[in-house]
């Protein structure tokens, strides 16, 4: 960078008058100190501390006892933990394979619609995104109430019987997934929309002259050129989905039974309801590893294809 060569030359200069122009070498550290120390104290250190705790058996009321990696083995044998892995995977799959295509589809449609309708629609889609999770969970809990919630009322018009959306173990997870998709579709849609608007129209024109069909246009022009945006949407959605907590905690609290007991909820309950700090920390480390692994997989997979 120009600025530093300028200054380092000056710092080395013997000419006292020029030396006064340069800045004190400790200044940059002063600038980054508050932010950096916060990240280390509030994120890095607790992480390392967590890794330590995971090697102990610590019910808080008693002193910790060292048990090495026993927690990690115990956790792998815990049926509730394994169940939470499955439930979380189910949730993540729902967000990725239903939520993302839905937002892409809506972006494509919105891209084709004229100005004012698009702006108003965009605002409408965004209101669930900016509304708090607690509000949304509470409102949907009311809507999905069995048997007199309004969702069942709507169903009765189509002749379908009332469902226990959040009370039926077979439906609960699907309901939670649906609510989250409803909330987040606007977010991904906006990002896709921005990406779509970056695709030069001339590509489509040229392809149409060559006789390309709508589907070919999508597959060979739109999709490849959306790659960087898609990558972000995929990764961001996945990571966020693995960390789901608030909606589940409020709407179902893991139930009925264990049908919605996702990983973060289980960690929270193990630590703060069952007071098993060591075990919970081990589970948290597992979560971290899973997220890292899945993210790396995604990055690797998306990098294998070139884009123009």
């Amino acid at each position, binding site marked *: 960078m120009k600025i530093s060569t300028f200054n380092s030359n000056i710092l080395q200069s013997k000419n006292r008058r020029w030396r006064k122009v340069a800045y004190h070498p400790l200044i940059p550290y002063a600038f980054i100190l508050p932010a950096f120390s916060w*990240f280390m104290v509030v994120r890095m250190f607790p992480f390392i501390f967590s890794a330590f705790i995971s090697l102990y058996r610590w019910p808080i009321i008693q002193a910790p006892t060292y048990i090495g990696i026993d927690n990690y083995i115990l956790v792998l044998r815990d049926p509730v933990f394994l169940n939470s892995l499955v439930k979380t995977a189910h949730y993540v799959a729902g967000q990725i394979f239903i939520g993302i295509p839905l937002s892409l589809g809506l972006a494509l449609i919105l891209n084709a619609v004229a100005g004012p309708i698009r702006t108003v629609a965009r605002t409408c889609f965004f209101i669930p995104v900016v509304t708090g999770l607690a*509000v949304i969970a509470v409102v949907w809990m009311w809507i999905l109430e069995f048997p007199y919630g309004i969702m069942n009322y709507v169903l009765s018009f189509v002749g379908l019987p009332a469902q226990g959306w959040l009370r039926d173990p077979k439906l609960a997870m699907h309901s939670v997934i649906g609510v989250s998709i409803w909330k987040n579709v606007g977010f991904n849609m906006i990002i896709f929309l921005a990406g779509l608007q970056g695709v030069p129209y001339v590509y489509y024109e040229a392809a149409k002259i060559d006789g390309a069909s709508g589907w070919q246009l999508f597959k060979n022009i739109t999709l490849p050129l959306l790659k960087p945006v898609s990558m972000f949407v995929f990764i961001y959605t996945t990571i966020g989905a693995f960390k789901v907590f608030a909606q589940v905690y409020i709407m179902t609290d893991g139930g009925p039974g264990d049908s919605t007991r996702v990983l973060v909820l289980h960690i929270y309950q193990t630590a703060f309801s069952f007071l098993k700090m060591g075990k919970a920390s081990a589970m948290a480390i597992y979560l971290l590893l899973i997220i890292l692994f899945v993210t790396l997989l995604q990055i690797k997979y998306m990098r294998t294809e070139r884009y123009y």
Partner: protein
Amino acid sequence: MRIRKIGWMTFNVVVVCSALIMLAPFFWMVSTAIKPLEDVLSKVPILIPERITFEPFLLAWGAANFARYYLNSMIVALAAVFTATFFCSLGGYGFAKYEFAGREIFFMAILATLMLPESVTIIPLFLMVKTAGWVNTYQGIIIPQMMSGFALFIIRQFVSRVPDEMIHAARIDGASEFRIFFQVILPTIKPVLATVAIVTFMSSWDSLLWPIIVISSKEMRTVPVGLTIFSEEHALINYNQLMAAATLSMVPVVTFFVILQRYIVRGIVMSGLKG
């Protein structure tokens, strides 16, 4: 994109329908909030209220203590916004415009922490906060929200685009480094600061996992915590109060959003396009 004649109608219909699906739950929320209890619990839902009462709102605000929850959330959110905007600007500027030993390493270290899920830090954080005697205090709630990796990134990105010449010129004119920061950099990056402020505010207002852990008394609850506990206590009964509380909870953030849409959307698009 070419709009085909037959497609045009369908597209518009789809857009309008989806937009309505996005808003419908909120209409139902407000509709429930202004009904007397018997109407709320009627077997056949009454879509448009026949009798209107604002009592649920008054009850939620007063008896259910939401006024206090609002105050708490405000204090926490504003503090978080201030610290995040200020210190991450300092940091973003430092990383963007200075060269110093270990710059990349420090940055990588921060980057690494962004990958950590909240779950991995909450247990130790709780123990640390407990040792400091900060459980159930404002500091305790605010500290884990004080900064934002997103803010640091976006500000650094933006600041790196500020022309070096401006900084050189100020330096030659004899300005101290901090003066350069306050009088040259900060005014130039106002749009980003606005985005950061809004995003941080919204994220702080909405946070649940940490506040639920660190708050133990009724007086210190933030709005999401209050809403959660209210729904647990009053499940199956006072839905109109619950919906009134929910409506109240939505107001600040949605107001911010409607007024400041541009910045929020730009912030999200920026993070998406730059990856």
